[in-house]
């Protein structure tokens, strides 16, 4: 039985094409995925991301639990409202999930985890919290909207349940809370904007107010092309429990210092590092006509790699992708598409940021 967010009926009323995403009935688009994509690059769009899960860690043991469970260092969260992107690893260094942790108080950290991993994440957290002075609270009572684009904050500010001036004053990767409302200057599109957490019962009202203000409803289709242009990983595609952060472009999220912090997976990552260079994780720009798709083989002089995410970039009007190549692979490679080899160029993501192309075509 598929799960639905508090906005499901609203999506139908807005003309959404609904698809299954990790067991959730979610909007793919509301007519044109392409137009929704461009709207977020140029104006403001809103996504229902209530299928993602807010998990609150409450209690004095929250920080020490996180310190053991995440590869980034929660000690970097020095002031209330700061956010941190991190991976949660298994003992083999594989990625259980990628997530954002927010710090609000020494006895209150909040994680936002992926829809497809929420059950195993919560189980993992509870298993490791056993005996610690911390409660793991899955906040099914909350909804989450992402309002993204250069005009997003300005249009949304008067409609959020946090003081508008305080919300507009938020710096990137920080958040403000007021009761069950949270406004965070984070996102998954490469544009400015907010991720909003609010009581599920208020989600429809906020959605309608945003649409009335000129914000366009956007589906998961546009969300995927936007995040790909922004060079952001998708869990389950670019990495999973068999891939370490060193092999999916997320080495920058691993906090090696302080050396005495024994997070789960650390030993495996150190062994991987000691064994030599990890696979190279890159952006690809297809030079020929065609569309890169996840799973296509990549041929480089140094061996074979694989496209982990691929698609058509509406901003560049070219196909782009993310790929895992052999360690030390050069910048020239060919992607095999239906038996033919097409030239691709290795580029450094993001492909697009704040509405502007960041790679030469």
């Amino acid at each position: 039985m598929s799960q639905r967010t508090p906005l499901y009926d609203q999506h139908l009323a807005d003309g959404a094409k609904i698809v299954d995403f990790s067991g959730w009935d979610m909007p793919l688009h509301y007519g044109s995925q392409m137009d929704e994509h461009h709207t977020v690059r140029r104006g403001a769009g809103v996504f229902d991301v209530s299928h993602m899960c807010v998990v609150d860690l409450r209690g004095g043991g929250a920080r020490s639990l996180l310190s053991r469970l995440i590869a980034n260092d929660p000690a970097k969260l020095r002031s209330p409202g700061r956010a941190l992107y991190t991976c949660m690893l298994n003992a083999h260094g594989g990625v259980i999930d990628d997530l954002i942790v927010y710090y609000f108080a020494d006895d209150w950290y909040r994680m936002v985890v992926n829809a497809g991993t929420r059950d195993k994440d919560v189980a993992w957290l509870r298993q490791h919290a056993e005996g610690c002075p911390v409660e793991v609270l899955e906040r099914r009572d909350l909804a989450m909207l992402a309002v993204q684009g250069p005009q997003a904050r300005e249009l949304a500010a008067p409609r959020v349940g946090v003081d508008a001036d305080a919300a507009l004053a938020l710096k990137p990767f920080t958040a403000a809370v007021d009761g069950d409302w949270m406004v965070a200057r984070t996102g998954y599109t490469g544009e400015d904007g907010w991720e909003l957490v609010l009581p599920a019962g208020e989600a429809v009202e906020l959605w309608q107010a945003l649409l009335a203000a000129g914000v366009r409803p956007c589906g998961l289709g546009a969300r995927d092309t936007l995040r790909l242009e922004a060079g952001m990983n998708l869990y389950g595609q670019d990495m999973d429990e068999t891939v370490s952060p060193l092999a999916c472009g997320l080495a920058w999220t691993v906090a090696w210092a302080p050396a005495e912090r024994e997070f789960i997976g650390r030993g495996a990552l150190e062994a991987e590092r000691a064994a030599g260079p990890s696979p190279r994780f890159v952006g690809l720009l297809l030079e020929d006509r065609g569309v890169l798709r996840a799973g296509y083989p990549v041929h480089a002089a140094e061996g074979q790699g694989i496209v982990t995410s691929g698609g058509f970039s509406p901003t560049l009007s070219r196909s782009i992708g993310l790929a895992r190549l052999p360690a030390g692979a050069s910048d020239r490679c060919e992607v095999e598409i239906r038996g033919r080899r097409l030239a691709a160029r290795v580029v450094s993501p993001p492909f697009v940021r704040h509405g502007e192309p960041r790679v030469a075509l």
Partner: protein
Amino acid sequence: MSEVPSELKYTSDHEWLRVEDDGNVVVGVTDHAQAALGELVFVELPESGSEVAQGDACAVVESVKAASDVYAPVTGEILGVNEDLADTPEKVNQDPYGDGWLFRMRLVDPDVLGELLDAEAYQALLDELD
């Protein structure tokens, strides 16, 4: 409700055929197919002059979502393809039965046309899908 022109032949793979005066056929994907595929961003067409057998994957339409095969609806020779789709694949979405045609074929056996679906039968198939 998708459009199903009455003068065309159809396949259960959501392709259409138009029989021209010279007996050759023009092939494309149906309105239902283009809507289900989503916005097209790339179309790969067969080589003119190539021989294809009924059921062969001979073209690919790629949308923002995924790549989908287009099958040869009949056995024969590819006479020509819609070159305009290289730069404007969205024509398949905008005008699936007109400017969005894919390729032209010469039939080996005109009798197979009788085995294809007519508009009424194809409409019935769509009704079952709903």
